[in-house]
């Protein structure tokens, strides 16, 4: 034992030395990035104020080098995780040499320090992209946007370097690590944070644009067009990130819940709602030069809520399933960042917003009004989530009451807003700009409405039990999908011509696809909530039992060994009408190093329903606890999320944004007006 260790040490020395160098270089790059960020924060801002082109020009190379330096630091940390460099305390606490390579890599951001480094990496990436694609912006605006973006980066670099340094070393490195939380060793959750951060942090660009425009004192239609692609991208990434998290919860936590109104989930949901509102109000700025100051406010609030989200998760202030960093000092630091940036921006807003005059004139019945209604519903519903999330804290601080605000409250208080939103969406999105005609639009939509009512009536009649949420969800989902397709069809001059359909601008397609995705998600949520069925029993090996239309048989239970876990794996045959339709292998795993058990449900995914099988504990009489769930329309929830994000991507690819961000200019092809 002793000799062996000695040998490993000797053989390992040169490699460890090189590895140590890479880590040190990463740390150094991070410090340099911090310094570059300080320069980028100050010089272009002064340059823009004094109109010195040389000073303003500093912003672009600074943004690029800031990004490259941060990428180098991040790369060094990934390297440390992959090579299991246990001289770094984050690696010791969150990795293990036996962990599969994928989770060594994703373990980089499966912890507080690493995830904050990923946060700034994405922040600097967006800053660099704003610099690269911002060629068409007025030089002063561009310099100011990049300076504000860099100010955010300075704050977070300081946060990382002074309170959460991922490159902190241990004097005596242990032989092996403590492994990553096994719940995080999963593909769904491995990629959940990067997408979420792309969304959260992407909103920082909108924030920077808003603050820069407030400093400039000017907002026009072009501003709306510049901001919209960033909002679209952030919103799409957030949609995917939230969807991944929800899907993960569905299959990993063992009973197939998909949304828990957990503070951490709410933390990502509030920016999503605000981003959705911003997305729509920026259209009004772009097309009609109205709602300008409101859009500014939304841009500030959307990123403000991203910061609040980061604060909620990082401080561990609100108890939650996945707060893995509970540290008050860090919480206070982020709170300070939150107060300085949101507070500063709002103060600036209060001082300057009145200077922005609205130009567009429109009637009460118009697309503009519909978008105002959309904004009111999204902003108020987000506010309800915010109050519900913070209420336990407020109640304890001010009324000395320890209470909980859980899922039943949110379902009750939040859902009505979404129902109303779904009701008005197809109508509002088809109204003409300036002055719409309800009667004409309603007539066009009548078939879609009829179809939705018919389907809702059908499921109402067919369902067992008298659940309201099911038929309402079916109505809304169908109404949204059919309504938005009607919209697309009427865009072709109601000709249904395929050629005309494909000539429509991508933004029109994006709108249709995203709205249909929302409808599909609503269908999924309602179906799963209303018609789920469950079976809990002790099953003997070889015993057949019926759950709904299915017959299940527990064939065998075996002990299996994984790379870094032990597993009890059941084998279940599912039959329908006598024929075998699936063979499922539910698992119960134990990760000895992390000392945690996990449940790995086995799911037979189908279009109309999932069959969800979980194996529990062995019983004294030789049987096993088995849980079987039939989950109707479950997949539709996440399919809808993907479709929504796809819609965002389609809109983003619309050529007018490429022109606005200054990529290339081709001869303008006539695009039908909306």
């Amino acid at each position, binding site marked *: 034992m002793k000799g062996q260790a000695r040998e490993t040490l000797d053989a390992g020395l040169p490699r460890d030395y090189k590895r140590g160098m890479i880590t040190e270089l990463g740390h150094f790059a991070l410090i340099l990035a911090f310094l570059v960020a300080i320069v980028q924060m100050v010089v272009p801002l002064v340059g823009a104020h004094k109109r010195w082109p040389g000073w303003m020009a500093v912003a672009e190379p600074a943004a690029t080098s800031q990004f490259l330096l941060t990428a180098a630091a991040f790369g060094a940390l990934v390297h440390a995780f992959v090579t299991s460099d246990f001289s770094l305390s984050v690696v010791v606490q969150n990795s293990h040499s036996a962990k599969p390579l994928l989770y060594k890599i994703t373990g980089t951001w499966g912890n507080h320090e690493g995830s904050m480094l990923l946060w700034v990496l994405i922040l600097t990436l967006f800053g660099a992209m704003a610099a690269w694609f911002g060629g068409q912006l007025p030089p002063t605006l561009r310099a100011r946007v990049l300076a504000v973006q860099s100010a955010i980066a300075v704050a977070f670099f300081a946060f990382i370097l002074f309170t959460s340094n991922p490159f902190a070393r241990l004097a005596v490195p242990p032989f092996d690590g403590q492994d990553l939380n096994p719940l995080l060793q999963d593909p769904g959750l491995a990629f959940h944070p990067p997408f979420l951060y792309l969304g959260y942090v992407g909103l920082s660009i909108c924030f920077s644009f808003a603050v820069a425009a407030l400093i400039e004192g000017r907002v*026009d*239609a*072009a501003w709306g*067009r510049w901001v919209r692609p960033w909002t679209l991208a952030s919103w799409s990434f957030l949609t995917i990130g939230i969807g991944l998290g929800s899907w993960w919860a569905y299959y990993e936590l*063992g*009973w197939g*819940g998909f949304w*828990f109104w*957990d*503070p951490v989930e709410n933390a990502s949901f509030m920016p999503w709602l605000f981003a959705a509102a911003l997305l729509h109000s920026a259209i009004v700025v772009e097309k009609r030069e109205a709602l300008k100051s409101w859009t500014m406010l939304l841009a500030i609030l959307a990123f403000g809520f991203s910061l609040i989200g980061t604060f909620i998760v990082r401080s561990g202030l609100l*108890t*939650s*399933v996945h*707060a893995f960093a509970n540290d008050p000092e860090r919480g206070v630091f982020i709170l300070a960042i939150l107060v300085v940036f949101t507070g500063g921006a709002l103060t600036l807003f209060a001082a300057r917003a009145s200077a922005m005059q*609205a*130009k567009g*004139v*429109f009637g*009460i019945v118009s697309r*503009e*009004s519909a978008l*105002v*209604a959309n*904004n*009111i519903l999204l*902003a*108020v*519903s987000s*506010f*309800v989530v915010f*109050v519900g999330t913070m*209420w336990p804290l407020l*109640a304890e601080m*001010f009324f000395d*009451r320890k*209470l*909980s*605000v*859980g899922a*039943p*409250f949110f379902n009750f*208080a*939040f859902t009505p*807003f979404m129902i109303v939103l779904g009701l008005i969406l197809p109508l509002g999105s088809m109204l003409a700009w300036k002055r719409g005609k309800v009667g004409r639009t309603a007539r066009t939509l009548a078939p879609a409405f009829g179809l939705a009512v018919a389907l809702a009536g059908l499921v109402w009649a067919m369902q067992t039990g008298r659940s309201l949420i099911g038929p309402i969800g079916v109505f809304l989902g169908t109404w949204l999908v059919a309504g938005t397709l009607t919209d697309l069809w009427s865009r072709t001059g109601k000709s249904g011509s395929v050629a005309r359909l494909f000539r429509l*601008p991508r933004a029109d397609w994006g709108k249709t696809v995203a709205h249909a995705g929302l409808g599909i998600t609503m269908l999924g949520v309602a179906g799963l909530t209303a018609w789920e069925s469950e079976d*809990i029993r*002790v099953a003997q090996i070889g015993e057949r039992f019926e759950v709904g239309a299915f017959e299940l048989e527990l064939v065998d239970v075996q002990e299996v060994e994984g790379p870094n876990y*032990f597993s009890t794996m059941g084998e279940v045959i599912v039959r329908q009408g006598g024929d075998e339709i699936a063979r499922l292998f539910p698992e119960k795993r*134990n990760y*000895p190093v992390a000392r*945690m058990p996990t*449940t790995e449900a086995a799911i037979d995914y189908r279009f109309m329903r999932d069959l969800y099988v979980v194996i*529990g*504990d062995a019983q004294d009489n030789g049987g096993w*606890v088995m*849980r079987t769930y039939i989950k109707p329309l479950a997949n539709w929830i996440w399919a809808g999320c993907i479709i929504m994000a796809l819609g965002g991507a389609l809109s983003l690819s619309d050529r*007018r944004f490429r*022109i*606005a961000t200054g990529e290339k200019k081709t001869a*303008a092809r006539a695009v039908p007006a909306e």
Partner: protein
Amino acid sequence: MIGTIRSALVALVLLIAGAAAAVQPDEVLDDPALETRAREISAGLRCLVCQNESIDESNASLARDLRILVRERLVEGDSNEEVVDFVVDRYGEFVLLTPTRDGWNWLLWAAGPIMLLLAGGIGAAYLRGRSRAPEPSAAGLSAEEEARLRQLLEER
């Protein structure tokens, strides 16, 4: 050496395996109506040692004790409210996932409607203003800016 580690690990695994998952078959009541009520009540009660999980979902042993307690009370003929009150008396209002409406809590429940009214009022006033405003000229922009703006907007 390897052998000792292996047996230590197995012992550790056995130790962990004690954790149960959510409602167990032996807890389920024979009367389906009572069981449904028990599930409804459990979904609204918070597991005290977990983070934001109801006792219906939780696999903590305290949650199991509470689930059994709820079922015992139901079998003895308590109404749903009586069962909930019984649990709240023992563990405080922290167990309620649906907060009460008394005291300052009314503000929590009314927050949504109040904000909606406020926002709706402001929105309506804004829309009225917009629909009555005179069509403005594009003043305040220099000729150059005007041209550039027009060029950008025409691209669509």
